């Protein structure tokens, strides 16, 4: 057995094959990017553990994640934002974690996406499970996992084919995902519409809508097709009573210890807006929640400047309009003295 020869051949072929694979995906328009994974979330959550001062915490789902531009927030408010919103999830588990496991009593901004917040409190349902998984990971992550994350960041940001996401929507070029897109007839019903990724996130979880989604209508349409598929599927009715009660209880605990709670309803458009208007009418959900909790509330429909914003795929603002939304929201909050820290002129 001539192992040395075999090893040299394997090394040359292996490196060549991986280089070709990288070049192939770059030619297909795939760029290296960070995944919004549990490690990024846990790092932000860790910041909260250090009892920071002058900090604003954001929780909710993907809308507030995309719509609040953290760099702008930092510059205009001179506060340190911690983004703990989790895509596709209810804010309740994260809110519960903050209330029960920290003594944070600063400003907490909750992004309300009605279809997720009012969906359920059942821990195994996806909107709850995703958020619970993030909290559990933060509590249980090992030192080895922390090192793995540190080592994976340079790979993710330099190689297009490297992915490190937690959810099916994070992966698009790994072997498992490529195989999962092969369907031969429809034995178990129609296959799900493939989800094209649209993340551009930093280590501080500053999320932006990538330009290729804003500029390429056909790409945005592939994401709309997924939303159509999801919104047309049979789903259990919202559990308004349980979700409202759980949120109210957490809100009361938080405000009683001096916390400043702010509810924000970020914009939606197209089919999302239609479905939300029918399934989660404002007067039955948002208004009731606002009346129940001792919080300041801001609904995008109440502000003329938030009408006609550009949401390329109906649910999240384009990068440019997200900056506009952030700037205007800060202006509104300042005018109403909603956040004590940002009224101080520094």
């Amino acid at each position, binding site marked *: 057995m001539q192992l040395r020869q075999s090893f040299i*051949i394997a090394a040359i072929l*292996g490196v060549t094959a991986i280089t070709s694979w990288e070049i192939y995906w770059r030619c297909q328009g795939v760029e290296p990017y960070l995944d919004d994974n549990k490690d990024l979330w846990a790092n932000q959550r860790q910041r909260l553990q250090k009892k920071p001062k002058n900090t604003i915490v954001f929780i909710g789902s993907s809308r507030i994640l995309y719509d609040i531009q953290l760099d702008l927030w930092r510059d205009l408010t001179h506060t340190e934002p911690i983004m703990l919103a989790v895509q596709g999830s209810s804010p309740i588990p994260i809110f519960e974690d903050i209330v029960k496991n920290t003594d944070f009593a600063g400003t907490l901004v909750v992004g309300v996406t009605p279809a997720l917040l009012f969906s359920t409190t059942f821990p195994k349902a996806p909107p709850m499970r995703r958020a619970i998984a993030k909290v559990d990971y933060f509590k249980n992550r090992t030192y080895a996992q922390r*090192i*793995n994350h540190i*080592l994976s960041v340079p790979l993710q940001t330099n190689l297009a084919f490297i992915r490190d996401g937690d959810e099916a929507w994070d992966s698009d070029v*790994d072997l498992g995902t490529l195989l999962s897109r092969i369907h031969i007839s429809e034995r178990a019903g129609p296959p799900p519409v493939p989800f094209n990724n649209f993340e551009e996130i930093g280590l501080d979880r500053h999320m932006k809508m990538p330009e290729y989604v804003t500029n390429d209508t056909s790409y945005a349409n592939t994401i709309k097709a997924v939303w159509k598929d999801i919104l047309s599927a049979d789903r259990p009715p919202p559990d308004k009573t349980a979700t409202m009660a759980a949120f109210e209880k957490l809100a009361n605990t938080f405000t009683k210890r001096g916390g400043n709670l702010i509810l924000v309803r970020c914009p939606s458009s197209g089919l999302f807006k239609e479905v939300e208007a029918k399934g989660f009418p404002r007067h039955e959900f948002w208004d009731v929640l606002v009346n129940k909790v001792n919080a300041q509330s801001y609904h995008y429909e109440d502000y003329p400047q938030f009408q006609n914003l550009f949401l390329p795929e109906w649910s999240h603002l384009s990068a440019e309009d997200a900056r506009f939304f952030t700037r205007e929201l800060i202006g509104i909050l300042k005018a109403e003295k909603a956040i004590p820290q940002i009224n101080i002129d520094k």
Partner: protein
Amino acid sequence: MLFNSLSFIVFLVVVLILYYIKILSWTNKKRMLLFASYVFYGLWNPPLIILLWISTMVDWTAGNRLAKETKKKRRKFWLLLSMFVNLGFLGFFKYGNFLLENFVSLLNIIGLNFEPQPMDIILPMGISFYTFQTMSYTIDLYYKRTQPAKTFLDFALYVTFFPQLVAGPIVRAQDLITQFYEEKRATMNQFLWGLFLLTIGLFQKVVLADTLLAEVSDDVFGTSKVLHGLDAWVGTIAFSGQIFFDFAGYSTCAIGIALMLGIILPDNFKYPYAALGFSDLWRRWHISLSSWLRDYLYIPLGGSRHGIIKMYIALMLTMLLGGLWHGAAWTFMVWGGLHGTYLILERLQKKYLPFKITAYNGIFLAFLTFSCVNITWVFFRARTFEKAWHMIQSMFYVHTEGEKILGNFDIIKVCTVIGIMFLCHWYMRNSSLKEFARGLPAWLFGVFWATLFFLIVIAQGHGEQFIYFQF
């Protein structure tokens, strides 16, 4: 730390550099390996290293006393102390919750309402493996089958040696400690073969188990729906492949990494799905555990020395406890019980209905064995008896209207992987990977190696834990 992680690659490179630079003496290299092994374990949960230390200290002390002590009573005391500490840790950490749950159920049955506080016990990774390994040392010393370790460093390294610390192979003292007495350096061929074993082990774990099989198995065993027979079978064979590739992958990595350091670990799997019957299966599947159970449980229970009935009882007890070793749940006991039943039936068949195995009926017999093994995997994988029973009913087409949840491609993918695996096991059953590699031209073996490496990289994986870490 997991073999299939970036941190392990860095860890291994650092260990290899320190091991092969010439500034360290052999003793210092062993100290470095011991320290590295604690780092390897501690990066998961540092406080649980204390358990390893206690186990090491107790067995080192007990071992030394057993080597010197001549009085039977005192010898027995030191053996029992070692077993009490090791089995005590295992019992508390692994079976504490299980025992409490069953105790509460028992009280509820007799009408007493008792609601204890949940114990929230963390299961230390690999505790079943290192506990059995250290126990074998003191038991062997008690029976004077081995010599005590020459130094504490050698013994501590035997308990903690990182390649096989958390999921085996479970190595006997005389096979490993003696290798630490003289300086070890891998030859170039050993080093490269070890690197190849690491590659093929990772390929089994990352590509075959996690990428190609795990999702189908998880979907089938995770659904609450009553399944169509085909879906139940495909999910079960997917798990059968997943657990083999996951565990054999780990063992292959462990053997490869040790070989890169010049240390030889025994084989743990020998193409088990081509086994001709169940005795043959247990000579091929998790060999280090099955030989441990044979030597330290089945034979002390009497083995075949006290007549057929007692032999069957010893066999069944061994398999039941073997099942319980895998996990603290009654489903694992049933899994062990089924294997015990298979072994007894096989012995009855050999006695009353003997037949000659030929080239023609061999593959059929191997397939029959594999099919029966698949039925046992249902109990191993299902979290509840209800789920297991539904799966068994679906597999035997009791639910003719069962739901179809798997796509055609998934079915083809799993059947192809499992079909190839079965045929590979059949053709390799009397051979070895090394013999196979020897028969290939160097360039072809290089292409094969590069293909494995490329598939690992593009599959990437997400650092999924090895299934056997939980045992």
